[in-house]
């Protein structure tokens, strides 16, 4: 009698396990693997993709993958520097923004444009963004297709921040129904006052080109201590290191001097 009881118990346990397995399969088919996703499911997936893209933009613009905005500040507005356009100082290749003019105090403006810096950021992010961007990986469990368009990076240097935008049309389309959702622009705002310090740099160059010097103390006082301007004189050049009291971001550049 006892062995029979044991058999019944065994069958019952096996039966329960089979039921649980069937239930689990049905659950994952509909919920985890999104066999037939509706618009809400697709929107949820799109949100995850959006977060992934935004994180990737940030990683590329100011993270482990790249720091073009920080580098631009350290290198006087240029990421790629041609021969004789910079001076190595404390391991940084700091650009000359004003070249020496022989036998005069004044210097020749190299005219750094905001749009050139924006282009440098765009080029750098465009090259690196592929190393973290992988929207197709979101498709592996889903019952939907991810249709993507061409990728276009944009950068906008504002007074208090730099906005990096990725124009990347993405459509998630259900494989079994007409449900689909789309998104196009993704961005990350990097809170570095590059635009503001660029304006200060231009003011300094204005003075250097016209008078051959700049009184940083008077300027700092005039601006009520908002900016910190250090002027160093590694012979024969002048190095300006600019920052704002409310931010660790640094913009530095050289004004070329004339050797005696």
């Amino acid at each position: 009698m006892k062995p029979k009881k044991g058999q019944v118990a065994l069958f019952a346990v096996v039966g329960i396990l089979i039921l649980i397995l069937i239930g689990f399969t049905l659950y994952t088919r509909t919920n985890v693997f999104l066999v037939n996703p509706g618009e809400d499911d697709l929107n949820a997936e799109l949100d995850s993709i959006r977060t992934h893209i935004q994180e990737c933009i940030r990683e590329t613009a100011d993270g482990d993958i790249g720091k073009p905005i920080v580098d631009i500040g350290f290198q006087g507005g240029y990421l790629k520097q041609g021969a004789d356009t910079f001076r190595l100082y404390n391991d940084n290749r700091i650009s000359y923004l004003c070249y020496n003019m022989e036998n005069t105090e004044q210097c020749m403006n190299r005219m750094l444009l905001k749009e050139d810096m924006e282009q440098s950021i765009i080029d750098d992010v465009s090259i690196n963004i592929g190393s973290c961007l992988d929207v197709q990986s979101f498709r592996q469990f889903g019952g939907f297709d991810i249709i993507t368009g061409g990728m276009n990076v944009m950068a906008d240097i504002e007074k208090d921040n730099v906005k990096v935008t990725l124009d990347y049309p993405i459509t998630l389309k259900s494989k079994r129904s007409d449900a689909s959702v789309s998104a196009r622009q993704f961005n990350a705002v990097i809170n570095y006052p590059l635009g503001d310090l660029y304006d200060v740099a231009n003011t300094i160059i204005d003075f250097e080109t016209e008078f051959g010097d700049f009184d940083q103390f008077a300027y700092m006082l005039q601006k009520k201590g908002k900016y910190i301007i250090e002027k160093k004189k590694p012979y024969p050049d002048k190095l300006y290191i600019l920052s704002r009291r409310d931010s660790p971001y640094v913009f530095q550049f050289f004004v070329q001097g004339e050797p005696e």
Partner: protein
Amino acid sequence: MLKKIILFLIVVAGIAVIAAAQDACCERTVDGEWCQFTNANNCDENYRNTPVSCEQTSFCKVGCCYNSEEGQCFKSTPRSLCESDPKNTWNLDAACQIEQCSKGCCIIAGETFFVTEARCKAETSKYEDVEMDFREDVTTESACVALSRTQEKGCCVNGDSCSFTAREQCETSGAEAAGKDGFYLGTLCSNDALSCDCARQQRTGCLPDKDDVYWFDSCGNPENIYDSNKGRSYNQGYVLSEGESCSINGHDDPNCGNCEYEQGTLCAEAGDARPKFGDFVCGNLQCEANEDYSKCPSDCTQSNENKFDELNKPEMIDEIKSRGMTAYLVSNGTVPDMTERLLNHQPTNLYISVYGTTPEMYKKTAVPMTKGFWENVQQTLSMIKDFSCNTVFRLTLTKGLNFTDPEGYAKLIESAMPKFVEVKAFMAVGGSRRVLQYTDMPLHSEIQDFARDIEKHSSYKIINEKTDSRVVLLERR
């Protein structure tokens, strides 16, 4: 002979080496740099180069470079570098003493910038509702900075006399050291650190050109905005901004004098109201609701009776449209009777501003002056679908107030069924800056996210956006 040939070859080789190492001004280098004095080998052979310094050449001569897009001027800029961009124009005057480059003081939101007029225009255009204020008579940066400083308020101590005034009206220029003559920025004249015989918070009253009720000291100097919590209002004898002051709870608030003209309150004699201290309160500007006009500030009576009566008629819209113009009407929807009348006088676009998804949120954000505001707004919203004109459900979102609950907004939108939904960020411009900060403005990316949430929970889809204005537009599918 052989010796001569060898000598000749050595000389030629020497010249070649020297020539190869010679520096020159390259109009453009192989690295893409313009006007660089460098080794001649670096010069791009498709451009000019001369073995003299760049400023001596015709192509890299320095002058003024004007960028019309940014309104920016670059002094002592080489010609070829400047002209490499079609948006730039080059001028021989290296110091940029040309009309386009003359700088003045640009005032945006109380901040001053010493820039060109074109730059001022470009910067101002980034902000909605900000009018360009460019002072071309201010010709130096320090004068521009001083322009903002002259209006700063503080106590002017001059011998026995103490007056709370603007810096520019203070004639003494002594050092700002406690107890001495001079201008004390942001300090009340009753502050114990000063040598003024003025006792704090003796009475309350109104100030010309100001909306609020103020405390006054015994010398007659205004202090901070009236707050029945005297200690908080006194702020240890220093100026307290409007934003940091108390908030009123409707008109006739006995405890707070931080009036909001835009919300219909203005400093006025208390009348029947009973402030905890003094004889002034934030009076009600909505005189129609009051029979007692004496309680209203004088300009209120005038505004209701004369200025707005004609404009308040919906026939005004017919008049506008009959002249071939478009009529945009923006309403907070708190007067449903008027909304109903508008059905027979429909504007081109009807905007209904909605400030919250619950009565509590709405009240906190819009501080309505009328009872039953929530029911009134709901009644107006229920009429939106009866309009044939463009109807817009307008959200002005402010952090910490109504920038929350997109699902709730989606429900309201679904029940009202407007043609469009405008999701926009509060902008810290105009009078709003007195009570809200720049940090209260949602970023455009946050507005985008909010609009997407509404899109997710409604039958509306995003069709357009404008980054500068931080606004996203949705349309009914």
